[in-house]
């Protein structure tokens, strides 16, 4: 079914993209915007990654070797901010832009001009954020969670730029989420009911609602900071009747849904890749949808598990402990469904599938350490140690990042009409897999042994494990440069890809030719389940 190229009205059905630089500045095409989002995310991933390399180089040995503690703090802070807001979130929005219209048979996003705006805000937001590194007093150095009063009373003068850049990122995410919801609600192909939507679309719909509910609260928090710093209010200053703990409550009311914003679309991606390479339909489609929705709802009820040690009342400790543990149930349903999908399937292990299987295994490890952290009495020991660092890197790197890489390999043939080099892809996988586990697994041990996070120096007994972590980090980091090479090679010289290069892949996007035409589904396709 080659709808787009055959559908030719009088004037513009065959017109392609405009030429030159203005094509990218003025574009309202979801594929162009998706591409720009993905490249921006990749650039940010490398920038945030090089900051991680500075951190690991300093921690290679105990003592201070390369950077001063003040700069080290800026690196940990910026690494977190850039990876969360600059790499993972824009990458998912980029995937949404590319894939959602093609998956639901829509010609474009519902609000194409806003789409352009929400992308073009981002380079300015991150430009501002990165510029703070060169300002007097340096960039943000208070941790990516920017707890008051560190980020208010004791912040460097550049904090106002940081606040403004968070505002811009929030604005961009909210507009992106509005666009996704408007597209999914209004532009599905006839016959595609909600419960027949592909899972990536479902998980993104739910993620978009999380964004709409959580990002404005973040905007509110940074606005309060701005007022505390510049206009003499006392939201977070106890001296004026405010409460620093209030900051943490508000921040994590945003922050916990935020961590699901970074993982729900990943669940969707894995739910496409695992069935494709198992040559079976996804096991338990509707339970996947309900599990995603329950995780989203629960995510707003567990924020204080980040704050077990601030002096919560016993009732609070218990409530947040049990509520947090409850999230393991829908998450377990998902892992069970993926494994059941693979069970007795005719599996082949192409690169996207390798990343997907690693996702399932390693994300589950991260989930288990999360359960340990959820046990409130035990958390008093784990709080602010490297165990926490190990936990969230296990859910974010082989979770969010691996799913994005898997998605890139899986849909690259559709995006650029060429196949990546399968052999190089597999090398990239094993290179990343080894580097990642070498980096983050020892962090569990040093964390349990008491090494605090966010410090440039540490006690001698942690030296060996830290050296292993650092070596792993350099291995993982170089693997991602190799990924850049694979992608560029694919775009320039890859073999021509057929419309559907994967034997078991299903979905409307595979009915389009590869590369997907600039304007696709200008006439809604017939959707048959």
């Amino acid at each position, binding site marked *: 079914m080659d709808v787009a190229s055959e559908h030719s009205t009088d004037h513009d059905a065959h017109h392609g993209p405009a030429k030159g630089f203005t094509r990218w500045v003025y574009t309202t095409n979801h594929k162009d915007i998706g591409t720009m989002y993905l490249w921006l995310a990749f650039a940010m991933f490398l920038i945030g990654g090089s900051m991680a390399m500075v951190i690991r180089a300093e921690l290679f040995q105990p003592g201070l070797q390369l950077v001063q503690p003040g700069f080290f703090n800026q690196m940990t802070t910026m690494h977190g901010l850039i990876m969360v807001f600059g790499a993972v979130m824009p990458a998912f929005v980029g995937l949404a832009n590319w894939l959602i219209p093609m998956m639901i048979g829509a010609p474009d996003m519902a609000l194409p001009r806003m789409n352009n705006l929400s992308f073009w805000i981002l380079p300015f937001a991150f430009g501002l954020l990165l510029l703070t590194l060169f300002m007097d007093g340096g960039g943000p150095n208070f941790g990516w969670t920017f707890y008051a009063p560190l980020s208010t009373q004791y912040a460097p003068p550049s904090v106002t730029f940081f606040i403004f850049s968070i505002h811009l990122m929030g604005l961009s995410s909210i507009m992106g989420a*509005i666009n996704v919801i408007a597209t999914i609600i209004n532009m599905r192909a006839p016959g595609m009911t909600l419960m027949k939507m592909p899972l990536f679309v479902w998980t993104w719909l739910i993620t978009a609602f999380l964004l*709409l509910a959580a990002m404005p*609260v973040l905007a509110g928090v940074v606005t309060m900071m701005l007022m505390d710093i510049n206009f003499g209010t006392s*939201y977070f200053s106890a001296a004026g*009747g405010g409460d620093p703990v209030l900051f943490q409550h508000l921040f994590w009311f945003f922050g916990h849904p935020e961590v699901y914003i970074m993982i729900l679309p990943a669940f969707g991606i894995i739910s496409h890749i695992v069935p494709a390479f198992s040559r079976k339909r996804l096991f338990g489609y509707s339970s996947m949808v309900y599990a995603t929705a329950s995780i989203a709802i629960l995510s707003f009820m567990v924020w204080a598990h980040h704050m077990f040690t601030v002096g*919560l*009342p016993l009732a609070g400790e218990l409530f947040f402990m049990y509520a947090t543990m409850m999230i393991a149930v829908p998450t377990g349903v998902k892992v069970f469904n993926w494994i059941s999908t693979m069970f007795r399937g005719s599996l082949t292990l192409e690169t996207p599938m390798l990343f997907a299987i690693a996702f399932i295994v390693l994300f589950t490890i991260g989930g288990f350490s999360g359960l340990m952290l959820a046990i409130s009495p035990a958390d008093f020991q784990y709080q602010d140690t490297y165990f926490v660092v190990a936990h969230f890197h296990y859910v974010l790197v082989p979770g969010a990042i691996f799913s994005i890489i898997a998605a890139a390999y899986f849909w690259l043939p559709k995006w650029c009409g060429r196949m990546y080099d399968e052999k190089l892809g597999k090398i990239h996988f094993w290179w990343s897999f080894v580097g990642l586990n070498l980096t983050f697994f020892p962090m569990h041990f040093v964390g349990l042994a008491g090494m605090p996070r966010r410090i440039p120096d540490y006690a001698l007994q942690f030296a060996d494990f830290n050296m292993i972590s650092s070596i792993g980090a350099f291995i993982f980091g170089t693997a991602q440069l190799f990924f850049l090479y694979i992608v560029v090679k694919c775009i320039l010289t890859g073999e021509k890809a057929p419309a559907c290069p994967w034997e078991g892949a299903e979905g409307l996007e595979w009915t389009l030719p590869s590369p997907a035409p600039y304007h696709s589904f200008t006439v809604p396709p017939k959707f048959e389940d």
Partner: protein
Amino acid sequence: MDARTQRSLVWLVLLPVAMFGFGFALVPLYDVFCRVTGLNGKVNTSPLAMPVSAKVDLSRSINIQFVTQNNANMPWTFQPLSTEMEIHPGADSRAVFRVKNVTDHPMSAQAIPSISPAEAAQYFHKIQCFCFNQQHLAARESLDMPVIFYVDPELPDYIHTITLGYTLFDVTKLAARAN
């Protein structure tokens, strides 16, 4: 843009706007929630409208401890005259704290109370307290500040000790701005 998208756009814009407002609404909401439930040791910072004439429970005595600390760079000295006292639940009791502005310029201060264990906060009633107001002291001036309080006889019987802590904040700038 078709009509359906336009309709969606209305509520899709209203939702984040409402959530932005909700973020600010959470500021008083958390406060109200803690005050109503007595969670997190939130203590009353305004006097009781009328002292409740509770029955004094002579069969029990509670050890009340006083601790003081200064916030950040607050230079005043701030100490309780006695660091602990035994009281009976229901009986009005009085404790005195002494502050001295050791600097050469006038300053304003605000004491913020906190009660530990947090469970006891809702049973600890202050009839009069220096923490209800700001203190303005001239250079080198000293002041004895009383707090009059009683402990509700309903206090759970497994609580034997209550610690009343005060943190003294420098509010000179805020006070100057208010005038």
